[in-house]
């Protein structure tokens, strides 16, 4: 029943999106996100609990306001992703800051790149922008709602961006695509059953290690990406300088050092704009 409601909410949002100019469509989606915040009590409780636990605020009223803002933000992400060409083709709408070392890798067709981010800002726009340099493979877990998943995939502009299922049966797939000079894009802020415990906002959270291991084994450059919304349909995309971890011979220590760095970069982005983060996920279990 909930899936059907979500599906029709998404269809309603899309109807509005198609009728309205982009900025108005973004605001329309934000209003629907706000409505969703009111309707989805279980996720609301998770979000408020997470915001307080993260220490972004210690005030419950403010936590609710941040949570509602984040819900509005997620509505906007959905719409912006479907209207991404307007952003990608307009330098006024997408300001980009790439360090020299990352740019060198992006412009070298022989070199792969691991790009890590979280469910912050608009990661979809970021992935599509990256695919203008070289093919991008993103790893994803399918949405819990298959109807909304199908709808979203039908509407997105993909270009050279493709998705790989989270549980890929081919162990060499990631190594091969990086060896072929492609980009592997990973969102590392969801609960990782087989991950390692690393602090996230000061609390241990099971965190994915794939990006770190690929950096260590494939010796592929690694960077952290943030795509922050500055205004409706307007973004600032920035990449960190390359993250370099020398191998010490202690695999677990090397992996933990990288994962801690990635988590701290994500925390930094979230602290600056907590309303642009997906708080409704049970990160600490």
């Amino acid at each position, binding site marked *: 029943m909930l899936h059907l409601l979500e599906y029709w909410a998404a269809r309603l949002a899309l109807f509005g999106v198609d009728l309205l100019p982009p900025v108005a469509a973004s605001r329309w989606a934000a209003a629907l996100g706000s409505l969703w915040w009111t309707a989805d009590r279980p996720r609301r409780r998770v979000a408020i609990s997470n915001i307080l636990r993260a220490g972004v605020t210690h005030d419950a009223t403010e936590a609710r306001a941040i949570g509602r803002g984040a819900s509005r933000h997620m509505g906007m992400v959905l719409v912006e992703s479907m209207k991404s060409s307007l952003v990608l083709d307009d330098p006024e709408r997408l300001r980009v800051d790439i360090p020299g070392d990352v740019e060198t890798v992006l412009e070298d067709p022989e070199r792969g790149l691991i790009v890590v981010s979280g469910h912050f800002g608009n990661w979809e726009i970021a992935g599509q922008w990256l695919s203008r340099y070289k093919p991008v493979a993103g790893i994803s877990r399918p949405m819990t709602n298959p109807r909304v998943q199908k709808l979203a995939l039908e509407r997105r502009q993909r270009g050279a961006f493709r998705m790989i299922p989270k549980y890929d049966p081919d162990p060499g797939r990631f190594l091969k695509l990086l060896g072929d000079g492609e980009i592997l894009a990973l969102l590392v802020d969801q609960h990782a059953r*087989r991950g390692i415990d690393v602090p996230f906002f000061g609390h241990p959270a099971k965190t994915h290690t*794939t990006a770190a291991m690929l950096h*260590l084994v494939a010796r592929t450059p690694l960077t952290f990406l943030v795509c922050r919304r500055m205004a409706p349909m307007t973004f600032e995309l920035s990449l960190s300088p390359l993250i370099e971890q020398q191998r010490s011979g202690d695999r677990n220590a090397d992996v933990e050092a990288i994962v801690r760095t990635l988590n701290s970069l994500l925390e930094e982005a979230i602290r600056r704009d907590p309303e642009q983060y997906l708080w409704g996920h049970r990160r600490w279990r």
Partner: protein
Amino acid sequence: MDADGTSEVLSRLRDVLRESAVEEHDWDAVASETPIESLGFDSLTILDVLYDVEEEFGIALDPKQVVKTRTVGEIITLLQQNGA
């Protein structure tokens, strides 16, 4: 003992696999002709194993070469080509 040291490399490789693998396996039965896909690694554990193999032998393998290997024997050849 074989002249090219294959047996010794295989023995050391078995030890690494035994240490690194998450799933149970009869590692003593692993031979040159054993297909890698039968060892039960997935996209996560294969990276752990590769790291540990490189550390054990003190070499760096080319990932593009590694993904082409299909049997344990081909991995051994790759290790020997890189100085193991």
